[in-house]
């Protein structure tokens, strides 16, 4: 594996550095080359050999190139990209379903890449849970048994895992379906089982690989709400893979955009919408409803107070506009979560920001 791995760091170390049991994930200079002899071509790729050259001349496929992402503990990190961008490859590195060619990967204090097979199994059992695009439910097990699967692998006592599973089945809204088999459920219900199965594991890291992509738009939006609701109380570190920008903006505390195995831009949704790094991303975001993404904190004029209603700094522009038109006012005071005024925002600011700039539309 890579030279830059730190062999001294034990696979398992002390308690997590972040309070509340949440774990941050840190990916450093991760490379993945697919092919019979990846190590041989690593140096050339690190020096900038193109994906095309690697494939056509050397017969290897570049999966990921120099990925470095810091995923905050207790937040939702979205990794977005079109098919073939390497996003599903990336998420599989976090629980090492795929071995990297080079790089480092830390989950809290745990050096994931230094783990022995045994330590890795324990890491997967206790620290991570995963939800899959195609659900990957076990067709020979009932909803109840599927949900218990993670705990069963951990040899948890029957009664205990039954209770835990029943709680999560109810929480995702499938009470009454415990004895159904996955094939008897609709796609949306199946993915609820997938979510319940992952949550029953009670792991600090939740990996969601295009978890909602196979669902109808309505059901997808439902599931997003379910996830956001749950996240409010769970505060897990969620890595969410998607190819859908709306979904990325709705769920992601932070978003990383992947293209051809490289990170093109990362930041908050707002940062990406307001300052797209290049044409590729501009073309991505041109149809986004900016009023639902940009928060009024970004647009306010600091320090000025006006005669008008108070709005939370975290509100998106659309909601501020709704408040203003309901009150019949032209401007609002922006306050922090404790009600302390931070600045103000006017209706014309809102309208200007909600319309995409001309230059962007041209691209």
């Amino acid at each position, binding site marked *: 594996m890579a030279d830059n791995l730190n062999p001294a760091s034990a696979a398992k170390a002390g308690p997590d550095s972040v309070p509340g049991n949440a774990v941050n994930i840190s990916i450093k200079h991760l490379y993945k080359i697919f092919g019979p002899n990846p190590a041989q071509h690593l140096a050339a790729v690190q020096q900038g050999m193109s994906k095309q050259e690697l494939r056509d001349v050397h017969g290897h496929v570049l999966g990921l190139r120099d990925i470095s992402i810091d995923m905050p503990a207790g937040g939702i990190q979205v990794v977005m990209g079109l098919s073939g961008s390497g996003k599903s490859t990336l998420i599989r590195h976090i629980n090492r379903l795929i071995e990297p060619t080079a790089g480092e990967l830390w989950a809290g204090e745990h050096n994931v890449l230094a783990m022995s097979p045994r330590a890795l199994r324990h890491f*997967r*059992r206790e620290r991570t*849970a995963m939800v899959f695009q195609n659900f990957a439910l*076990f067709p*020979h097990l009932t909803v109840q048994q599927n949900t218990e699967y993670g705990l069963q692998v951990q040899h948890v006592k029957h009664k205990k895992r039954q209770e835990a599973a029943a709680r999560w089945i109810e929480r995702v809204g499938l009470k009454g379906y415990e004895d159904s088999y996955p*094939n*008897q459920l609709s796609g949306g219900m199946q993915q609820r089982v997938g979510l319940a199965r992952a949550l029953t594991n009670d792991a600090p890291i939740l990996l969601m690989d295009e978890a909602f992509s196979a669902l109808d738009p309505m059901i997808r939006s439902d599931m997003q709400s379910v996830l956001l609701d749950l996240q409010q109380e769970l505060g897990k570190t969620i890595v969410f893979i998607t190819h859908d920008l709306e979904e990325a903006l709705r769920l992601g505390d932070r978003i990383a955009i992947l293209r051809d195995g490289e990170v093109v831009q990362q930041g908050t949704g707002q940062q990406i919408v307001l300052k797209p790094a290049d044409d590729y991303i501009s073309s991505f975001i041109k149809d986004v409803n900016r009023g639902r993404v940009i928060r009024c904190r970004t647009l306010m004029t600091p320090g000025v107070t006006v005669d008008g209603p108070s709005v939370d700094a975290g509100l998106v522009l659309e909601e501020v506009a709704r408040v203003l038109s309901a009150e019949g006012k032209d401007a609002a005071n922006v306050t922090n979560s404790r009600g302390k005024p931070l600045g103000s925002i006017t209706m014309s600011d809102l309208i200007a920001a909600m319309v995409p700039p001309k230059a962007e539309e041209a691209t």
Partner: protein
Amino acid sequence: MRTLAEFPTLGTEQLSQLRRFIDGGFRSFSREYGETLERLFDPLREFLIFSERLMTQSPWPVVIGAIALIAWLASRSWKITLGTVLTLLAIGYFGMWIDTMKTISMIFVCTVVALALGLPIGIAMSRWDRLQRAINPVLDVMQTMPSFVYLIPVVMLLGIGRVAGMIAVVVYAIPPVIRFTNLGIRLVSKDLLEAADAFGASMWQKMFKVQLPLALPTIMAGINQTIMLSLAMVVIASMIGVQGLGQPVLKAIANQYFTMGMFNGLAIVGIAIIFDRVSQTYGKRLQKHLEVVHG
């Protein structure tokens, strides 16, 4: 031109020398080790005799009741259970009870042995591609070699009787269970294995909780085939002293007793149908959860 009309062969002299050399070698091998091998198979002989006694010496209503119960538990179909009971009653009424019991006992033991050997081999084959490549041609030989041919070395080694017959039957009947076990495990979707991996399942947890249960319907199809093949072979094995329905069939062929041949042949058909329907419906019941109820 004459050289093309006649195939170039080894001389008669060399051929018979070759034959004598191989036969002689095998004969001295069986003289040397035959007894040791026979003793090695003693537990199996005991098992065969025990199971045969159990079937032939238990009161017939108990035996019919037990078989009917098994048929019911496996198929959950009263039609199949009733058919089983009626078939057995008819067989008994026509005086073939003891022979039929001997045949059923033989098939039972042969199937158990075939499964005990075949399942682990099939599982191992599914794990290692190289093993699969090595075993597949062996299975091809076992299935295509005329069964009479491998009766010869078995009889030379172990003499005539139950054990030799059982080995011949198992050799003939084991390939399907091996092949289907291997196939069934290999057909389990990669996505499910990935999910099991993601939850930290060990190799054994994957095998016993995911791969084998999902392969079970396929494996059941293999077991069904194995039972059918051992039934077919039990008749042929009667030529080397296996008792049961094969014996009267053999006698009927030798003496041209048409009715005797027919009756015993029909009894074989009867138990074949019982075995087939029961094991098939059991296999189908295992697949119930795979049916898509919701569109």
